[in-house]
């Protein structure tokens, strides 16, 4: 292979004209077709664009010699020097040819300081093109796609659909045979990984192997298209362009509530929402008539710019950044065009002007947003007054989540099981029930309210009103300074169980009927103590709920309950809260319960609240719904739960129950906030910013306009809206969208896009390898109602897709990059799928769809450079740990190291083309990341526990089928058996190591398995999870 690498010089040696046949070697799509007639877009434009347009192109500010080569009429005119660059039909008379052949360093083009040179082949092509009359074509991507009939083939044996006709026509022209179909094992694995991002299970493999009907393959395609995992697989690519992440990206990189949008994307692909609707809802769902919550969720797309709340940041500067981000995103996502450079200057190679940039940005001038998401003294934002780094990024709406509802049902089921299985002696349950019933007869609302025994009253000791004011020497009445301190109350409850404490805050006439002395809202901390025999001991609180409160936030999420601090909500009405004790308390005669209320900071304890009352209850707060106690003694399930919570019986079960309760509460009744686009009445004034400088207000004002070099929206009203933009994107006026989307889709199934750079279809991109095919597919997509599943079906049914992925050694020289597609391309799996695949192989994968972000194991301290607020990373517990990577918490400034290693983008900006590296960090991750070690161990245990495979050979067969969808080759089998022996010996020698290994990860290793054997197989499974084939789709 090395010999191929040192070939650069050969490129010049082998190119000959006029046959041009040998251009073939140059490897680009253009030269592959060089034996056909010269075509401007394919053969000439790339040369001119690369070498000439920088000084002789659309950017007028850098144009040299008055010459413009991107427009034919201009190039045929004399330049400043009087010479004519292009004389059609006469290369010798053309200044362009003279200059490119000149040996004078002052004359030669491109000039030496550009460090660009034309190859002899390129010079020959230019001459030949001029000789043929120097015909131009409009840039291919900017003219509407036209569907031509698929070509007829001499040998149509391997043609399954139109895709194959186009692909094989080019092969046939070169007498190259398409590759045969891949074997069934490989085909199913390929199809499964491509359509769902998951490998086929052994039973799926068996079913496919057994299905001998001609529809067998189609059936698999339909099964996989119908799988809910199809949406997950498709979503990853879209989330890259949408720059979807769970944090805001700038400075403190706080959380943003956006996961409902991710779930919407997954659901949209699953229900096969037509791509035009998909587009319209994301860009302008809020402008549709009576938008549904789903359509509003879709508009989160516009809100996924990075955002800041850094002190000292200037709102106007950041609003400019947010606009530029939207322009780049929309241009890359739908237009496949690089608009970024036009922020500061006209594009050098494409007709994109700065005016186009800012006019496109003007469509988003109505998006409700803030430059800086808090109110600082020097940049006040009245609507954000009081916002701290913990607050969300408005505007948000609350939407229902199917994932959360489903999770609640699961948790409820588990809660029921825990209650059912808890150790509860029936007699004591009955006794408790009877006592509770009696209590309720006396105290129907569940609270006993003993009289206040002691009140360390601010009024008595510290309240100015209770102390006579003194007249000073000058006769002015001087109020004594109020001493500050908490408000304390003590009550003496009756003997018996206490599970909760009730606290009521009351309006006080002394405070002008307000709750607080200041009349303002305050945050209250309540601490409780039990005083027994004169000794006070603190009472720990499990959770607390209030009937009136203002929301409090923790890194973007509303805090559940008020145990951490109770914010009053401004009304002069009583506020009530119930504090559930961490451990129920058996009150004895003479015990006192005490509360201390504090609103100031710790240094200067004070209480802005003057009137409060304390009560006790043997009951605990109801879990859901209305504020209040759960005093229902009729329902048997509820009764058991109440008994456990109210008596503390079976502490182990109670601990588990509380985790379930917490998780259940975090489902927030099945709803979640999500950032949305809300249109303001008064859009920002938009102007061209000279050189992108936001402080320069001398540029011309702009209105929303589509790029000037493409057709305008039909029947344009006065001021275009986002909805007009969205509809135009998917209209026939726009030649780009369908091509751009199909081009990206092609890459997903064939490894390389038809036009190699999905993010750049302009003149600096690559002409498509099969332009007629790309256009045929683009037209098909639009005419068949933007039906994504239809297009996927079309692609995967083609023979081109189904071919073997054995790259063809004999074509290495003729078609080194496999642009002709004489075989499939192998593709290393994407970052997310590498994780999902390992979890699926092992059996550890939790296939739930949707829901809040989850946190895979991550190296400790990874977020230590994050502040505002400081960050703790707690890996997800229970089965949430084993979710697919599309649900992983996406921290823009510190993406999970595993995802980052395998080239997942941080999503700070729109990305349409992921890189694909091969690094030692990837090896270290697969070898040592606990996720993969635990997966190996879980998998090994599953293999060892399978009653149908008891010999090493049978077990190896299962390993192979799980991971590779094929049997091990004899040589592999032999090697692995030998390895197994060595591993057993290692762990026999160091049994303590086996114990350590089996402790990796949160999931306990199953009991009853031989530890040495399990450790040995775990390492064997590690080997298989690390194989190149395991992380590659062939």
């Amino acid at each position, binding site marked *: 292979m090395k010999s191929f*690498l*040192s070939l*650069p010089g050969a490129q010049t040696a082998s190119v000959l004209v006029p046959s041009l046949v040998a251009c073939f070697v140059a490897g680009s799509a253009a030269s592959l077709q060089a034996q056909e007639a010269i075509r401007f877009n394919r053969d000439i434009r790339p040369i001119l664009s690369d070498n000439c347009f920088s000084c002789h192109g659309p950017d007028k500010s850098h144009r040299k010699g008055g010459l413009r080569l991107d427009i034919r009429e201009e190039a045929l005119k004399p330049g400043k020097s009087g010479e004519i660059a292009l004389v059609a039909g006469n290369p010798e008379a053309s200044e362009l040819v003279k200059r490119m052949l000149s040996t004078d360093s002052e004359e030669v083009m491109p000039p030496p300081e550009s460090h660009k040179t034309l190859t002899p082949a390129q010079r020959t092509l230019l001459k030949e093109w001029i000789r043929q009359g120097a015909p131009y074509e409009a840039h291919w991507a900017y003219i509407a796609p036209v569907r031509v009939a698929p070509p007829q083939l001499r040998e149509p044996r391997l043609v399954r659909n139109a895709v194959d006709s186009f692909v094989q026509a080019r092969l046939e022209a070169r007498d190259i045979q398409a590759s045969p179909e891949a074997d069934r094992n490989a085909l199913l694995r390929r199809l499964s990984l491509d359509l769902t991002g998951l490998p086929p299970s052994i039973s799926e493999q068996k079913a496919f192997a057994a299905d001998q009907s001609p529809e067998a393959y189609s059936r698999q395609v339909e099964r996989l298209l119908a799988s809910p995992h199809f949406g997950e697989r498709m979503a990853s690519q879209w989330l890259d362009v949408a720059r979807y992440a769970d944090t805001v990206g700038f400075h403190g990189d706080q959380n943003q509530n956006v996961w409902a949008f991710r779930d919407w994307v997954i659901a949209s692909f699953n229900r096969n929402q037509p791509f035009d609707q998909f587009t319209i809802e994301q860009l302008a769902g809020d402008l549709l008539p009576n938008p549904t919550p789903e359509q509003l969720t879709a508009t989160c797309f516009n809100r996924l710019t990075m955002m800041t709340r850094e002190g000292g940041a200037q709102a106007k500067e950041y609003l400019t950044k947010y606009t530029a981000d939207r322009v780049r995103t929309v241009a890359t996502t739908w237009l496949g065009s*690089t608009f970024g450079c036009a922020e500061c200057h006209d594009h050098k190679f494409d007709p994109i002007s700065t005016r186009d940039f800012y006019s496109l940005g003007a469509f988003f001038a109505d998006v409700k947003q803030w430059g800086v998401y808090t109110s600082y003294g020097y940049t006040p934002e009245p609507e954000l007054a009081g916002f701290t780094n913990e607050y969300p990024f408005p505007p948000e709406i609350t939407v229902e989540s199917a994932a959360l509802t489903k999770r609640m049902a699961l948790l409820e089921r588990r809660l029921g099981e825990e209650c059912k299985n808890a150790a509860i002696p029936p007699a004591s349950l009955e006794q408790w029930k009877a006592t509770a019933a009696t209590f309720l007869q006396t105290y129907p609302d569940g609270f006993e309210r003993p009289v206040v025994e002691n009140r360390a009253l601010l009024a008595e000791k510290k309240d100015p009103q209770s102390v006579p004011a003194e007249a000073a020497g000058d006769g002015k009445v001087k109020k004594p300074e109020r001493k500050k301190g908490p408000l304390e109350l003590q009550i003496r409850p009756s003997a018996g169980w206490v599970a909760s404490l009730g606290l009521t805050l009351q309006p006080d006439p002394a405070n002008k009927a307000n709750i607080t002395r200041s009349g303002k809202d305050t945050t209250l901390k309540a601490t409780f103590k039990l005083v027994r025999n004169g000794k006070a001991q603190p009472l720990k609180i499990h959770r607390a709920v209030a009937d009136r409160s203002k929301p409090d936030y923790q890194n973007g999420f509303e805090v559940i309950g008020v145990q951490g601090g109770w914010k009053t909500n401004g009304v002069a009405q009583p506020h009530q809260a119930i504090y559930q004790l961490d451990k129920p308390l058996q009150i004895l005669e003479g015990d006192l319960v005490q509360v201390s209320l504090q609103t100031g900071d710790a240094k200067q304890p004070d209480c802005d609240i003057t009137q409060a009352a304390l009560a006790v209850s043997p009951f605990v707060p109801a879990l859901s719904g209305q504020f209040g106690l759960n005093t229902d003694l009729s329902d048997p399930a509820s009764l058991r739960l109440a008994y456990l919570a109210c008596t503390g019986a079976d502490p182990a079960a109670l601990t588990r129950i509380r985790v379930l309760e917490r998780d259940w509460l975090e489902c927030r009744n099945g709803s979640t906030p999500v950032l949305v686009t809300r249109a303001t009445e008064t859009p920002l004034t938009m102007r061209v910013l000279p050189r992108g400088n936001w402080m320069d207000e001398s540029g011309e004002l702009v209105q929303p306009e589509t790029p000037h070099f493409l057709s305008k929206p039909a029947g344009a009203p006065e001021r275009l809206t986002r909805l007009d933009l969205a509809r135009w994107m998917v209209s026939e006026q726009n030649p780009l969208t369908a091509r751009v989307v199909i081009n990206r889709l092609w890459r997903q199934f064939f490894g390389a896009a038809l036009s190699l750079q999905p993010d750049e279809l302009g003149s600096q991109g690559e002409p498509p390898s099969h332009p007629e095919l790309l256009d045929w597919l683009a037209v098909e997509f639009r005419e068949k109602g933007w039906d994504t599943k239809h297009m996927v079906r079309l692609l995967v049914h083609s023979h081109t897709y189904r071919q073997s992925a054995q790259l063809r050694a004999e074509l290495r020289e003729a078609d080194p990059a496999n642009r002709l597609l004489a075989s499939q391309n192998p593709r290393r799996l994407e970052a997310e799928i590498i994780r999902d695949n390992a979890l699926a192989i092992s059996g550890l994968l939790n296939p739930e769809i949707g829901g809040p972000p989850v946190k895979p194991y991550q190296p400790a301290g990874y977020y230590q*450079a994050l502040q505002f607020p400081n960050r703790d990373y707690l890996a997800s517990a229970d089965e949430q740990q084993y979710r697919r990577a599309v649900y992983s918490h996406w921290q823009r400034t510190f993406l999970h190291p595993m995802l980052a290693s395998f080239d997942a983008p941080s999503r700070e900006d729109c990305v349409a083309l992921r890189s694909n590296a091969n690094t030692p960090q990837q*090896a*270290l991750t697969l070898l040592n990341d606990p996720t993969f070690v635990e997966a190996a161990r879980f998998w090994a245990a599953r293999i060892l526990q399978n009653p149908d495979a008891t010999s090493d050979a049978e077990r190896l067969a299962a390993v192979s089928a799980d991971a590779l969808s094929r049997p091990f080759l004899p040589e592999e089998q032999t090697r692995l058996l030998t390895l197994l022996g060595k591993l057993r010996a290692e762990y026999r020698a160091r049994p303590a190591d086996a114990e350590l290994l089996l402790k990796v990860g949160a999931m306990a290793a199953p009991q009853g398995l031989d530890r040495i054997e399990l450790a040995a197989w775990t390492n064997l499974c590690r080997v298989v999870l690390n194989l190149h084939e395991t992380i*590659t789709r*062939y």
Partner: protein
Amino acid sequence: MDYLVHSAGAQADINRRSFLYRSALGLGGIALGDLVGQRALGAAPAGTGGVISKPHLPVKVKRIIHLCMAGGPSHVESFDPKPELKRIHGEAFPESFTKGQQLAQLQGATLKARGSFVDFDRHGKSGQQISSLFPYTAKIADDICIVRSMVTEQINHDPAQAFMNSGTILKGRPSMGSWMLYGLGAETNSLPGFIVLTSQTKGGGAQPISSRQWAAGFLPSKYQGVLLQSRGDAVHYVGNPEGVCQSVQRLVVDEIGQLNGLAAKEHVDPELQTRIAQYELAFRMQTSVPDLADFSKETQATLDLYGVKQPGDGSFASNCLMARRLAERGVRFIQLYHRGWDHHGDIEKNMPISALETDQACAALVMDLKQRGMLDDTLVLWGGEFGRTPMGQGSGRDHHINAFSIWMAGGSVKGGITYGATDELGYRSVENVVSMHDLHATLLALSGIDHTRFTYKFQGLDARLTGVEKSTVLKALLS
């Protein structure tokens, strides 16, 4: 095969089409869409060369250590004495300076001059002026070149750091360390070639920092900076799993290699050979990283020189010592962030703390490199992402982009000189103004790279570290 596997014989200013051609030949044709420059190809020569096989310019430094004083140290309290500012302390700051200029937290405030709270003395034979907060740096006055006339374009930390590192605030752009590594490779084949360490002040003034600051952007991800962790594994996942001893790990890695080798007979997939090599390198890293973090062979004298109390404690001093160890091992670009210079308030209390935490170790690093004969081909760069206002902000100073100071030492950088100047109040750089792009051009030139010829095709354009505007190599600083 090396850590930085690269395309053999590729040119600096890679033309993407011809690059595709070259790499594609080596690949036997696969996923060409993935190919935008990042394929690991063929057998690399010894060491880890970059795409620039033949330097454009004489190579003056082989490695760069960037001591990033993150948060933005005050220039008028470090390297730029301003008696006039002191004289008008407390008075209104002349509006002629500030009119129409960008402000950060001082927006809308009444601007008052705030004189330096420290004194400056002349130091060394050269008589360089250094404030009393930096007594150790004063000792290396003759080794360092002070630049007083820096300017930048971004006034908030996050974008300003991005601009300092990548020359742009566009996302997805490579940091200077990544560019260096891409161009030149590294002289190690068992450690990453671009390593980052962070530390945090015990005083006030720390700001968060994003891993994007050392990202490879559109360059292949193998060129990204690797953050050495002070807790847990120094490099993520470099330690064996619990219960996997070195001999078991060796068995596992060997077997992966053997089976991948068998697969290479079955599949024509050029990635396979690279994969095999990367596992070997990963295994080597598993050995070399613990060795790197083993400070036991450092003498007490060395520890004292740097002021290291506990090696590996995550302090800036320990990081400086680590920087020297990395430099010895052939790492190309080493970047230390000390998060602690954002002195909006309490500057008189907190700036001395930050100085105390860094001054001795910075000077020690230069001295240590010098005594080991490494300063001749190592560049040490000290500075923040911007400076601080000569106007007061309560008890501190706000962000300032029109003027700030940095220093450099090593390679062909002239020691004992001060370059550039600000106006009498330290508000604006007025003489020999140096932009971040000029600094980048100079770093590249010292490394033997002509910044105008060092480009990478991205989204159809020739991107470069120094951007599209003209930048100047600071030849006056170089001997």
